[in-house]
């Protein structure tokens, strides 16, 4: 059992859990993930570490209420426990020298933040490019602002409800044109990562994407999370989750991510109906 020490709500649908997991906290690295099984009937869902503290013995992850598991998790409160949490899993991010642009879109910002922090703390210059559909879905703005200077933060919203209207590739392209960026890290929805990669390739700048396919075991055994990178099949759970974004077969990834959409809807509906009956 893994106790929830702290619960933070960022918006209507976005939450952060701080979980008691002393051993995991000692061994976690930026870019790695954990897997949650909420209860006896639960599925295994991967979440990238948002933060961790080896001294205090906790790890954090951020999630957005989308399907059944995340909807159910959002009802868990401080003091409740998650049945199983496994991690750290995956390869730590390898972050080279030079100036970085870290791009996060939507919940991907939860993963982008520890990467930006690690880069910043190791003395590297970091630009954060933060994208969201709308202002309410923009995560961790305060944390990013506390970390980086004002002119190193670039925010876009699809609907223009906050800062620049548009998508993350616009500020990325400006930075690349100015020649201020040596490396790029991108994490978020597939189209965002795909177009970040195309933009980076135009300027011949290396770009890493942190991928988020569906996983079952998370330890290289089942192959559910496989993704084609540079013409080869790779397992995101043990070979990644970070890959050279210019080599990822994004269409394959997107198709595999969407493979269970019908079932996910079904599970959520069943959960909401059951829950509704309880409250009546």
């Amino acid at each position, binding site marked *: 059992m893994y106790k929830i020490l702290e619960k933070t709500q960022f918006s209507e649908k976005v939450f952060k859990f701080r979980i008691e997991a002393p*051993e*995991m906290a000692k*061994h976690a690295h930026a870019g*790695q993930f954990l897997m949650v*099984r909420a209860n006896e*009937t*639960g*599925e*295994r869902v991967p979440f990238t570490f948002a933060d961790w503290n080896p001294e205090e013995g906790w790890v954090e992850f951020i999630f957005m209420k989308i399907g*059944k*598991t995340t909807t159910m998790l959002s009802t868990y409160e401080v003091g409740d426990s998650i*049945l*199983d*949490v*496994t*991690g*750290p*899993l995956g390869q730590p991010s390898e972050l080279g020298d030079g100036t970085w642009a870290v791009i996060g879109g939507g919940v991907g910002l939860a993963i982008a933040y520890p990467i930006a922090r690690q880069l910043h703390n190791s003395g590297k210059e970091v630009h954060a490019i933060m994208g969201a559909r709308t202002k309410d879905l923009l995560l961790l703005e305060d944390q990013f602002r506390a970390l980086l200077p004002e002119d190193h933060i670039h925010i876009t919203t699809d609907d223009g409800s906050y800062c620049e209207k548009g998508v993350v590739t616009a500020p990325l392209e400006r930075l690349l044109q100015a020649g201020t960026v040596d490396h790029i890290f991108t994490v978020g929805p597939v189209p965002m990562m795909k177009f970040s990669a195309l933009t980076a390739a135009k300027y011949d700048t290396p770009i890493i994407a942190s991928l988020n396919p569906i996983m*079952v*075991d998370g*330890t*290289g*055994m*089942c*192959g*559910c999370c*496989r*993704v*084609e990178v540079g013409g080869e*099949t790779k*397992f995101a759970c*043990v*070979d990644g989750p970070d890959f050279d974004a210019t080599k990822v*077969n994004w269409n*394959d990834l997107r*198709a*595999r991510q*969407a*493979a*269970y959409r019908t*079932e*996910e809807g*079904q*599970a959520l509906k*069943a959960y909401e109906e059951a829950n509704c009956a309880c409250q009546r």
Partner: protein
Amino acid sequence: MRRRTAHARGKERAKDFRPVDKGFTEEMAHAEAARCMRCKKPLCVEGCPVNINIPGFIEKIYEGKYGEGLDIIHEQSMLPAICGRVCPQENQCEGKCIRGKKGEPVAIGQLERFLGDMPEVASEPKMAPKNGKKVAVIGAGPSGITCAGELARNGFDVTVFEAFFTGGGVLVYGIPEFRLPKAVVKREIDGLEKLGVKFEYNSVVGRITDAEELFAKGFDALYIATGAGLPKFLNVPGENLPNVFFANEYLTRVNLMKANKFPEFDTPTKRAKNVVVFGGGNVAMDSVRTALRLGAETVTLCYRRTEAEMPARRAEVEHAKAEGVIIHELASPVEFVAGEDGSVCAVKVQNMELGEPDASGRRRPVPIEGSIDELPCDLGVSAIGTNANPIAKLIGPEKLNKWGYIEADENGQTSDPRIWAGGDIVTGAATVILAMGAGKKAAADMTAKLLA
């Protein structure tokens, strides 16, 4: 005449996941035990990878002394209820049985299972006094749990680290309920806990801790039994389409995560009309039979050689056929074809013929030029084996071979004197009994060396 166990009718039983083979009644076991010739030089014992005294325990069944019979098995194997069900007996003990020369061999596997299913009659395990040494076992599959049990009985303080949330390894994620009830596996794990073995679940050693850290925490030795890992690829176009699975995923979703009970359980799986499985081993058989139970209309097993060369247990091939699986011999996949929705809708197969025998002695399949068929396939499963899991190399300083498996001597000793290893992570994918045997041998070697 060899006694046959009861089974529900093929088509009927393939509707649910309940165990298929009902095993022997006491009467049947007694009659079958009477068939054993008590050979002076029992070939069955030679055929057994762990050399169980087979005529010895069969004699005890005949005499009705079940406790003594089980004690005889326990001298060599702690998992008779499991091995009685999953060993390829026709290539081992039963394959050597003298009765089989002219008629049918003694049903040794069923007799082993008969005793294994009454663990309560065995003598209390003899426990050596605590010796103050601590051992970490990595992986709670058949090899790890055997080693852990032996070490605990030898007086060691044993902790098993397991990546999943429950113990059993391939016995719970790979082998389906209809072939090996999960209650049987749980009984073995519970038994180990009673011996004082501790289990640390959700612990991927190599990530949450490693060999050096475990030694620093006071462990004196390690037994690594993480199993084979990574599925082998077919390396054909369309292999990554939605609804093309590796058998490990297809089976894990159902066996471990209970996707057959979705949405009561949260993990979904795909229920398809026309399922095609590639491979000829036990994992392929488990996959086709799982597909039937998930309601597939047609389930086809494609194998590049013929049925006679299939490495699966004979009983599993027979079960699959009785349940309605179509065996499509001499065909190898060349491409998975996507339908309008982007998921797989068909698979093209290259037809083969048998040529000259290869190194394994089996006739090599040779493609028939230009002979390609397209089979309807809205769910494909690849069950052609596994490679070493790359997490093994993160555990400790022990040497790996060029394929990524751990190098170990016949007692499981690795290049590091504090580390032993066994099971599939040493041999590559093999059988439960060999993994178990490796755990037992390593435990004996560890006991001798650590207490020297």
